[in-house]
């Protein structure tokens, strides 16, 4: 069990909210959230920073849901009879996605938010071919999801962290595409997808 005070990723450790340090932010937000009667008394700067943090936390939780999905997907694939690069990538990528999950959970908690619950997934993958086909779609969708969400993040440290994650998703996407004999980089500009489009895409993979 990871100690919640253990640094999860160096990129995510130096998080500041607005111009406040994290500790002062967390103190103030705890006071604000914890005391309903006092909420109206806080200064406009604090409530503004808090509103921004809440928006960012929503985005981080959206990313967390995708990372839960990808982690479970690769762990499920590891149970299939895979060979060669497909086998290696399933194992490697499962570890990468798990690190993304850990980093996002740690960051959401540090910002005073509650990490989204892990959904139960169903992928319908039965062999190497069905794994590789869905992997390509999931990684491409992941890239587009992060690229769509990035400009919405208010906190620039979070944007830096999201960038360091999307770069890995793009590398995964290219590697899987190569195994599939597909163009690893089919467009000069990667597409971006908004949250609704991404959720619509992954909903069939989530058990209700």
């Amino acid at each position: 069990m990871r100690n919640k005070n253990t640094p999860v990723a160096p990129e995510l450790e130096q998080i500041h909210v607005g111009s406040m340090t994290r500790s002062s932010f967390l103190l103030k937000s705890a006071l604000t959230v914890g005391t309903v009667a006092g909420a109206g008394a806080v200064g406009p700067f604090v409530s503004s920073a808090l509103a921004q943090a809440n928006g960012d936390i929503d985005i981080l939780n959206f990313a967390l849901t995708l990372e839960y999905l990808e982690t479970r997907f690769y762990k499920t694939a590891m149970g299939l009879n895979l060979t060669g690069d497909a086998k290696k990538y399933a194992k490697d990528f499962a570890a990468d996605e798990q690190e993304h999950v850990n980093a996002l959970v740690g960051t959401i908690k540090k910002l005073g938010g509650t990490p989204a619950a892990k959904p139960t997934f169903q992928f319908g993958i039965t062999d190497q071919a069905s794994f590789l086909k869905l992997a390509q779609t999931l990684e491409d969708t992941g890239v587009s999801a992060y690229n769509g969400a990035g400009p919405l993040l208010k906190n620039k440290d979070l944007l830096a962290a999201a960038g360091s994650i999307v770069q890995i998703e793009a590398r995964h996407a290219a590697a899987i595409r190569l195994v599939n004999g597909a163009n690893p980089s089919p467009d000069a500009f990667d597409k971006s997808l908004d949250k609704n489009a991404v959720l619509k895409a992954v909903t069939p993979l989530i058990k209700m």
Partner: protein
Amino acid sequence: MPDPRNQTSALDVIADDPTSRKKFLRMVGGSGGVAAMAVLLGACGSDNNSSSTSTPAAATTGTAAKSSASDMKGDLDILNYALTLEFLETDFYNKVIDAGLFKGATADLLKGFGESEQAHVDALKATITKLGGTPVTAPKTKFDVSDATAVAKLAATVENLGAAAYLEQAPKIKNAEVLAAALSIHSVEARHAATLNTLVKKSITPDGAFGKPAKMADVLAAVKPFIVA
């Protein structure tokens, strides 16, 4: 409960969702994206008042609709820096293709990468001009393209560096549309980097689960040997 057999097709539909796709193309993408990207950025240029009215609170929002003159200057500097790197990459691939070192699928791949870099050059130049800036001119380059193995290694180095350069700059970009464009280029450089890493038998994720950024000074020092003074 959804039918698992429909999963992939549902995702495929979204991946090709004409609405999202069209929306994105309006912003930056595709072969006709250059003009679209520049048009969208028009609003930023017209708000470029001489005196900054940003309050501390507004400044912390970063992507606020109104950009100050200094924000715009910062974005233009980043765009011209990116343009310099894209010029280098484009020239590199052109020289590699001309040298005829690679055949078949690898040659096609490198040609495609070169075309992407040229599209990045075109988009960045148009954006800089639209924002009222002046695009830097293409540097004169020198690349040793005599040996296929050395060229493949250099290509991998250049693309990994390019991805790291965009990653470092992205959080410094103030204009949301410029940022969206930079992100859409960043992940393409990452795809190129991973592909070339497989070609030279390197890990596709040499930095582990999180990409590492590279500072402008370090990147410029690294590419200096390829620029003719």
